[in-house]
């Protein structure tokens, strides 16, 4: 169904402009629409295959992740056994095309998986997702050889990769990165420091964005590289101890005269910024769906507890103040999920999705934070205690408003699209 919709929307609107976002004055009447096309225009249903994928991810999360999540949160150990099992079940490298050994799933199917995995533990989900994040630039811009080599090995064995863009002095301001790559002989030599790199301590290879032309504008002076993690000159920092998602591995990575062969350049020299940004069109809906997964977990935990816990002679779900909190959690979760699905569907339909992806990211991350907060509130004193599942959700949720573009940056992206959509008279 989705692919059919995707085709029809492509054929009806061949241009990749933003015009599809603009308000449509005509076809406002339901009667006209039904005469024009008997088939439904909108579907919120999943295909059998998507249903199967969702069932698998749900079952995996509930049997393999939920029981061990608290333990990994406390020990902060990297969840290798879970990663290996996920690889075996085919739940990693989801958007790697079939040609390179992956299932080549569409973004909506990937989003179904990341929501379910995140329901189990967003620390583990982030470790799994960061692999996809690193692969995205390779899928978007890599040469055939590069894809075969670096994507192929990921599908063959359980390896992880890392996406290296953020620096100590430049996160949101990607244009401000200082890592340099200069040409020496035929090769490139990288120097600089990357910060908060997910999976850095365990990665087999890195995607690295570096400045290759200091005189050019940042958007055209950067280049993306695939860098083997065992290259001489790569120094890993200690594991950073963060508030939440504690089993996810984040570190500083220093590149000191790291030699990268010319064939490891992604796309054309100078295209790095665009490639790194394009990868976000794929990964933002997935990070957003993970936030929905966390929000869903908070909702379920809160609703269950509210039926068991009694005060003043009745289960607290019968106190209106609590009931309304639960209702708000449900509303927000459903709204966020629908926006995430739309952002994923837009990408699958071949339409520009940056606008929706940023909206989904903003709403879903806020929902995760609010639901986690409300879940702690519903649990009362128990919510503040580490023996109960919700304080972890509270700590884990915050990162969703920070990584893959802060909520402020998302609003910048959205607002700039707005100005282009509705120009001043």
């Amino acid at each position, binding site marked *: 169904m989705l692919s059919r919709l995707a085709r029809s929307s492509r054929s009806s609107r061949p241009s990749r402009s933003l015009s599809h976002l603009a308000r449509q004055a005509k076809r406002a009447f339901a009667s006209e629409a039904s005469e024009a096309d008997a088939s439904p225009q909108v579907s919120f249903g999943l295909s*059998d*295959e998507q249903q*199967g994928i969702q*069932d698998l991810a749900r079952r995996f999360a509930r049997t393999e992740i939920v029981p061990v999540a608290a333990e990994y949160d406390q020990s902060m150990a990297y969840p290798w056994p879970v990663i290996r099992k996920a690889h075996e079940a*085919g739940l990693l490298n989801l958007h790697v095309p079939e040609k390179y050994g992956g*299932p080549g799933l569409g973004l909506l199917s990937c989003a179904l998986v990341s929501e379910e995995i995140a329901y189990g533990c967003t620390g583990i989900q982030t470790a799994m997702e960061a692999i996809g994040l690193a692969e995205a630039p390779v899928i978007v811009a890599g040469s055939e050889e590069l894809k075969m080599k670096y994507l192929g090995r990921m599908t063959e064995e359980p390896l992880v990769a890392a996406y290296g863009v953020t620096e100590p002095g430049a996160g949101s301001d990607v244009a401000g990165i200082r890592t340099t790559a200069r040409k020496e002989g035929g090769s490139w030599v990288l120097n600089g420091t990357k910060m908060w790199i997910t999976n850095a301590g365990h990665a087999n290879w890195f995607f690295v964005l570096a400045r290759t032309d200091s005189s050019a504008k940042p958007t055209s002076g950067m280049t993306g590289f695939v860098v083997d993690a065992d290259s001489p000159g790569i120094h890993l920092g200690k594991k950073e101890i963060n508030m939440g998602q504690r089993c996810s591995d984040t570190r500083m990575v220093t590149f000191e005269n790291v030699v990268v062969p010319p064939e490891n350049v992604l796309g054309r020299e100078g295209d790095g910024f665009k490639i790194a940004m394009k990868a976000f069109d794929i990964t933002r809906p997935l990070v957003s769906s993970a936030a929905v997964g966390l929000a869903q977990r908070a909702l379920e935990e809160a609703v269950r507890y509210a039926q068991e816990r009694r005060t003043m002679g009745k289960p607290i779900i019968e106190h209106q103040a609590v009931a309304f909190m639960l209702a708000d959690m449900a509303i927000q979760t459903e709204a966020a999920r629908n926006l995430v699905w739309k952002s994923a569907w837009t990408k699958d339909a071949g339409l520009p999705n940056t606008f929706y992806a940023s909206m989904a990211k903003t709403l879903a991350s806020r929902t995760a934070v609010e639901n986690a907060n409300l879940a702690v509130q519903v649990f009362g004193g128990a919510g503040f205690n580490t023996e109960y599942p919700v304080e972890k959700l509270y700590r884990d949720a915050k990162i969703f408003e920070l990584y893959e573009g802060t909520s402020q940056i998302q609003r910048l992206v959205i607002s700039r699209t707005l100005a282009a959509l509705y120009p001043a008279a």
Partner: protein
Amino acid sequence: MRPTPRSLLRILVPVKRCVDYAVKIRVNAQQTGVETNVKHSMNPFDEIAVEEAVRLRERLKDAVKGITAVTIGPSKAQETLRTALAMGADDAVHVETPEAAIVEPLAVAKLLRAVMDKKGPYDLVILGKQAIDDDAGQTGQMLAGLLGCAQATFASKLDVDVGAGTADVTREIDGGLEQVRVKLPAIVTADLRLNEPRYASLPNIMKAKKKPLEKLKPEDLGVDITPRLQMLKVTEPPKRVGGQKVDNVDELIAKLKKAGVLPGAA
């Protein structure tokens, strides 16, 4: 059921689409049944049956000629067949019945016999010991009765000797375990301890949609599925009366004695 040459085994695995075991069941307002507009999945015992068929092939390799999954139910039951295919079945048969039809175990057994006549012969039929919705626990036995072949119910271990044409089955019985040897063709029903079903992995889910799925109707098979039993009413179980908390063990024992539920107490 005509046996195939001794060296090749064909396995049939009937599966049923049931309300998911994790769903909290509710009786409908008309008291004619339970709410079915909820998540469904494969009957857990049938998952064990599919798993056992797939494991048999892993053990016996080429001696297993094929594994066919079959389901009887409305069009949505196809999802369940796709799951079985993703777990490792080779092909599937869907006997489509109307959405609202109640198909009793006897009708299921007759349909299965008809499917075996049409698609068979099969040497081994592995079913779940019961479906978690109607809790009948009858289909396997009825099928064996109709076919006049051996049956081994509540299996917790299954060994097949293809050459000898026999299967050794360990059965879960009240007092412990019982080992029996049955001649193939035979019916085996799976108990919980037989195995732990695998995930249908993502690549296999995707491959499953390319595997053959044949659709039949009860009329094609010449089977009348009209229920023999008339269901009068479905109701919720009586609500449990709220318990109470006691302060200490002595009080607990005193209350239990008073209720006459403590062994030895009057």
